């Protein structure tokens, strides 16, 4: 079975096959999503195209061209027709950036961090507090805020807060790291888990003595950065109207806007992660993961390097946190629960610890599963419930199926199953990490 697949893969990956397959997926995917924007299978075909593109042997320039065509033209156009897809892709990008950050800590440096979402919270609350009316409401009781309070900062400050989010999260990472890095392995995991909860509980309770976080109700509205000036918008509107079928509204433009913003952040995240990995620092992290004693004997300062890993990993989450707060215009402590940390960890493990393409794939797959596949499955079941259909042989009417059976609520179950199966059958992940092959002078002899 395994050889059958690898043979097939090899056969399909030679000559003109790869480009044919990629085009087939691209064309079929795009057209079917265009025609039936609500179909899940159509979207699945389209969204697997980048994965196939990644694995197929095609000239690099053509690859990049197809990739850019898909990302910059096809997805936004189709996305405006069904705004939900842009939302899915936005979430994929957000979680991919989180997974890339966690991958630095867990995958490269081998430090199991179960409270990673705390850094995400730091970035999100930084913009939430300053980008909303919260600063003017510090002394009012939560829920009893005067309606006419002014916004504290101009929405354009958002751009600065992406960088502030990075800095604040990195600083928090170092703060956490200083006391925590004395412990190793399981102990480290437990301490970070505690830290994650501390941050969430702080967000929950910092509505007194001064109302900083507005407690469990969360902060809203949070400002979004302004769209480009009207002249630019008009150009886009004219360009997109014939493609989309109607003049896009501002709300739709905002979705495209955040989609591109997320793309920029993920692109920077990938760049930073790959460059760090292939450097003195990245090698030091991997060395620490492989053997701490040998690493320190080679002159690698353990504490400094571990702190650097925590700070670098956290900084990704900080940037994404600010982006998330602006996109949702709402943050609440619930978003930053322990389950989120586990979710991001699941993505990293599913894709492959230490593997940059792996964790991006892992993030995309888990997001897709959670907010598309399970959701659709739930819808399908509820449709069956309302029909008169009966399961043959056992004679069970779908009508009698319990309402409690709702796959959309089984997120935790899915995380658990993924973690268990991966650890047993494929601990190095679906796309395992590979070391870069160098062109060494000695090999040419």
């Amino acid at each position, binding site marked *: 079975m395994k050889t059958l697949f690898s043979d097939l893969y090899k056969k399909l990956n030679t000559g003109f096959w790869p480009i044919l397959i990629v085009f087939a997926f691209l064309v079929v995917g795009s057209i079917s999503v265009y025609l039936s924007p609500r179909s899940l299978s159509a979207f699945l075909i389209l969204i697997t195209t980048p994965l196939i593109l990644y694995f197929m042997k095609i000239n690099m320039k053509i690859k990049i061209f197809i990739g850019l065509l898909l990302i910059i033209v096809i997805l936004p156009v189709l996305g405006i027709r069904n705004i939900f897809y842009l939302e899915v892709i936005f979430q994929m990008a957000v979680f991919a950036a989180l997974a890339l950050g966690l991958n630095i800590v867990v995958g490269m440096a081998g430090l199991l961090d179960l409270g990673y979402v705390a850094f995400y919270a730091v970035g999100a609350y930084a913009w939430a507090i300053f980008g909303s009316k919260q600063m003017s409401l510090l002394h009012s009781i939560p829920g009893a805020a005067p309606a006419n309070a002014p916004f504290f900062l101009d929405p354009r400050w958002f751009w600065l807060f992406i960088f502030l989010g990075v800095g604040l999260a990195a600083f928090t990472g170092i703060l956490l790291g200083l006391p925590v890095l004395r412990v190793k392995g399981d102990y480290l995991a437990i301490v970070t888990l505690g830290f994650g909860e501390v941050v969430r509980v702080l967000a929950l309770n910092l509505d007194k003595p001064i109302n900083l976080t507005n407690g469990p109700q969360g902060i809203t509205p949070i400002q979004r950065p302004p769209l480009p000036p009207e002249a630019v918008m008009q150009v886009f509107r004219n360009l997109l109207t014939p493609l989309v079928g109607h003049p896009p509204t501002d709300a739709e433009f905002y979705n495209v806007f955040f989609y591109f913003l997320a793309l920029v952040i993920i692109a920077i995240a990938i760049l930073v992660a790959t460059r760090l990995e292939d*450097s003195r620092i990245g090698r030091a992290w991997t060395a620490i993961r*492989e*053997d701490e004693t*040998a690493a320190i*004997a*080679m002159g690698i*300062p*353990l504490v400094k390097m571990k702190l650097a890993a925590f700070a670098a990993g956290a900084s990704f989450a900080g940037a994404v946190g600010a982006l998330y707060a602006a996109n949702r215009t709402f943050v609440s402590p619930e978003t930053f629960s322990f389950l989120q940390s586990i979710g991001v960890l699941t993505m990293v493990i599913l894709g492959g610890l230490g593997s940059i393409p792996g964790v991006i794939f892992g993030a995309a797959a888990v997001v897709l599963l959670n907010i598309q596949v399970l959701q659709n499955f739930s819808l399908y079941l509820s449709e069956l419930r309302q029909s008169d259909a009966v399961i043959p042989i056992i004679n069970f009417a779908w009508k009698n199926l319990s309402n409690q059976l709702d796959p959309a609520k089984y997120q935790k179950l899915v995380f658990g199953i993924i973690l268990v199966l991966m650890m047993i059958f494929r601990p190095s992940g679906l796309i395992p990490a590979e070391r870069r092959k*160098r062109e060494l002078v000695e*090999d040419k002899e």
Partner: protein
Amino acid sequence: MSLLQTTNVVKRFGGLIAVNKMTFSLDEGRIVSIIGPNGAGKTTFFNSLTGIYKPEEGQIQFKNHSLIGLRPDQVAATGIARTFQNIRLFGSMTVIENIMVGMHIRLKQNPIDILFRTRHFNAEELEAEQRASEWMEYVGLKNVGNELARNLPYGGQRRIEIARALAANPTLLLLDEPTAGMNPNESEDAIKLFRRIRDDKGITILMIEHDMRVVMGISEYISVMDYGEKIAEGTPQEIRSNQRVIEAYLGRGAAVAHEQKH
């Protein structure tokens, strides 16, 4: 003037005195061995030198600076590199990367260089890669640069460990049982390599070794430890006929019998 000088170094584990009042000096450019029965405290002494253990008492001077209180990475930065008794490579990194980790303290790239791939970064990485290749060939390995370290045979792994230590440009190289598990031919090659390291590079070598052929074949000076104490030192000739050494290795009764035979 000695390169390394320890005075009355004591290392205890609870009630057990693993290293007791170890006074030891090592001249630059020498090849010196520490021998002794299992559990004599040799590796503990190495670990005290390299900062992995903190000795309770005593002084350690290297190049006239005290090593007491330094972390292992700081000790490494003063110019002491080491290998381990049970090979400790970074298994899932390539051979070249393992050796490049050895250069950690020599590389000067900062995060800005790394993130923006400055000219300085590229030049330094290229040079490091080339030097790593050279070290690999120096210890006698070819065409394995891109192999994962854990995929190499035992002898190859021993060599990489030495190459990794050499890549740090040390003044002093500490080898902990470098020929353990080698057959006589391999040991012979190892001896040649150690001599070459000292002769070409001027690196002082201090090693713990059990294989007497290796010890007698290469050492210019030998220290013998037993129960945490130095019981003898001298040239291979002197050690070979030292009564206390024979006792430590063979036990008292056997030593007496040995004496009577002569």
